[in-house]
């Protein structure tokens, strides 16, 4: 097993990875940019190496600086987390060349699955259902028109190198096609350095369901069930759960088999996620493979009782996967809410700043994967995720109730968060009925506003705070200072 691992990431995921390393007896190296000198991941590691300015391209995205930090500390392996260099084939290849173990799939697998058209070709060849649409890039209006003709409207333009909604357009009518394709291509070129786009059928009322897989170097591949991730804002997930309320046991088994087939077809090794679109008729279509640890992996850990990061590390160290498909079973229901620094009242605009007060929810079945603390200045340069609040309970209904309780006791003061928005989503009838489609927020919460009645209570709390005696220098509120026996004791004869 590795003696030392460098975690090429920041925030909650870096903290989460280093905890598993510590439990495995592996020394940890954190890297941090100038903006992250006081970041939790940099504080909690055994060593912390500065890697440059706040700007991601000069620190967390700089392959040279990460590799130099590995060399400097003598780490044997790198865990990339998610985001940053996690799906960067060039980084994985560089590690391979330099004899550093990259905790993830081989560079070549990242490369082929990172290109969406190539990934679609691989899946189609191995019989995994794909969304009806093009299997080749198209670069001119004639090719776009021909593709559109075959697919029908509405359709979706996608960037082959894409991700995160960039270079994506929905087109409802032929007249808009050419201009939309050109715009999408420009956007993709700017974002990914590759303007290649292709066309797919648009499935308006659909769900986003993904399957977690684990594969070792010997080709032994299993799945760890699904995650339902349909509830999104700005094309980013905000609530995930497992099991999906939409899957029957038969459909779950079929999707699991398809995911394993997809992983095998791609020569996949390590933990990965096969994303599918599920239509209301129960038909599912391959969307893409995320060749890394997924943000929402904790809900899978909750229902399976497995530590995915530990399995990633063991696979990367060359160990065979000791689990068989039959060993894995799902228990209970888990939900994750992503707690971003953002303002749900202003279209989820980011809200960086200093966290003035912070209190995490606690209790049975609650886990909060967190990267911040009271007093920390949440930097403007990075992803706004503060923590992932995860609950586990016996049933979906109980998990929802547990999440509601947890959210109600989660105090984050100083930056805005969607906690109150999430409370209303979780309490809503469509969510409780499991009607979780990708248009959920647009359909049900487009004009969300904060709760009036609680606002009045908050106003009263404001007044009470102004009236209640403040703390003395020692930090002890005056109230507690009314003379009790323990105060009195100090004046007694010693």
């Amino acid at each position: 097993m590795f003696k030392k691992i460098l975690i090429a990431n920041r925030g909650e995921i870096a903290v989460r990875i280093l905890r598993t390393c510590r439990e495995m007896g592996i020394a940890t190296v954190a890297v941090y940019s100038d903006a992250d000198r006081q970041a939790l991941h940099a504080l909690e590691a055994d060593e912390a190496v500065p890697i440059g300015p706040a700007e991601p391209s000069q620190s967390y995205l700089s392959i040279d600086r990460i590799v130099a930090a590995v060399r400097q500390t003598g780490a044997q392996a790198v865990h990339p987390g998610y985001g940053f260099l996690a799906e960067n084939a060039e980084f994985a290849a560089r590690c391979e060349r330099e004899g550093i173990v990259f905790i993830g799939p081989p560079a070549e697998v990242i490369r082929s699955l990172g290109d969406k058209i190539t990934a679609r070709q691989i899946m189609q060849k191995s019989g995994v259902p794909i969304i009806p649409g093009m299997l080749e890039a198209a670069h001119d209006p004639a090719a776009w028109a021909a593709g559109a003709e075959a697919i029908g409207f509405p359709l979706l333009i996608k960037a082959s190198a894409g991700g995160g909604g960039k270079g994506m357009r929905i087109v409802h009518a032929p007249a808009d096609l050419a201009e939309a394709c050109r715009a999408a291509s420009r956007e993709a070129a700017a974002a990914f350095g590759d303007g290649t786009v292709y066309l797919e059928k648009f499935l308006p009322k659909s769900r986003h369901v993904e399957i977690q897989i684990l594969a070792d170097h010997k080709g032994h591949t299993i799945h760890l069930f699904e995650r339902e991730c349909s509830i999104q804002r700005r094309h980013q997930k905000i609530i995930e759960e497992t099991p999906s309320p939409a899957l029957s046991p038969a459909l779950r088994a079929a999707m699991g088999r398809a995911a394993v087939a997809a992983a095998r077809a791609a020569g996949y090794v390590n933990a990965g996620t096969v994303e599918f679109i599920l239509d209301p008729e129960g038909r599912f279509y391959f969307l893409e493979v995320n060749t890394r640890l997924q943000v929402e992996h904790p809900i899978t850990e909750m229902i399976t009782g497995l530590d995915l990061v530990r399995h990633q590390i063991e696979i990367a160290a060359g160990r065979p996967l000791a689990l068989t498909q039959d060993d894995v079973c799902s228990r209970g229901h888990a939900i994750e809410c992503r707690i971003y620094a953002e303002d749900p009242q202003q279209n989820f605009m980011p809200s960086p700043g200093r966290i003035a007060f912070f209190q995490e929810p606690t209790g049975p079945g609650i886990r909060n994967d967190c990267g911040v603390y009271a007093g920390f200045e949440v930097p403007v340069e990075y992803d706004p995720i503060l923590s992932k609040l995860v609950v586990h309970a016996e049933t979906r209904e109980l998990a929802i109730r547990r999440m509601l309780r947890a959210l109600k006791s989660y105090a984050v003061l100083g930056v805005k968060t969607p906690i109150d928005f999430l409370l209303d989503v979780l309490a809503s009838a469509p969510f409780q009925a499991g009607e979780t489609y990708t248009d959920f927020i647009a359909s049900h919460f487009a004009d969300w506003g904060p709760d009036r009645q609680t606002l009045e209570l908050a106003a009263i709390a404001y007044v009470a705070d102004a009236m209640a005696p403040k703390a003395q220098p020692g930090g002890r509120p005056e109230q507690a200072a009314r003379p009790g026996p323990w105060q009195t004791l100090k004046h007694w004869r010693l």
Partner: protein
Amino acid sequence: MDYKLKHNEEVIALAVETAGDGLLSATVGDKKMEVAFARISENRLRLVVDGRQILAFVAETSDGKAVMVDGRTFLLADERTTGTRPRSGAASGPKLVTPPMPAVVTQILVAQGQTVEKGQGLLVVSAMKMDTILTAPFAGVIARINVAEGQKVAPKQVLVDIEPAAANEEVHG
């Protein structure tokens, strides 16, 4: 004693009477509430409002007090002590070229002296991986660009001054 507390664009008026140590009654609109209160620690208060006990969390921020009750957090400011409105993208009005949140300028799309149309993109700011294009609130000529690419900027800060094309008054801030 009366309080006028600003929340976003709204003012919440409370008529408050103290009723002894740690007791008050508060009237909001036509609703009167009897409240007992006590401080637990610097940031925590215990309230009993009409018989129901509530833990409230309060912290000072640069824009007022953040107050959390039942998982819902509100930014409140005493109108008497705030000269300006609480910061808010919407509150800054459509007449200023200012970022809606702390951000970094990633691209400047215009030059000094250039004529711009209303709605034309002027610069791109980025915060937490989200890009926002700031556009011209009215037609005119770019009088001054106050920032450079790579620079950190904050709400209310005027990034670009525009000389209005027509009879509009000039708008700075």
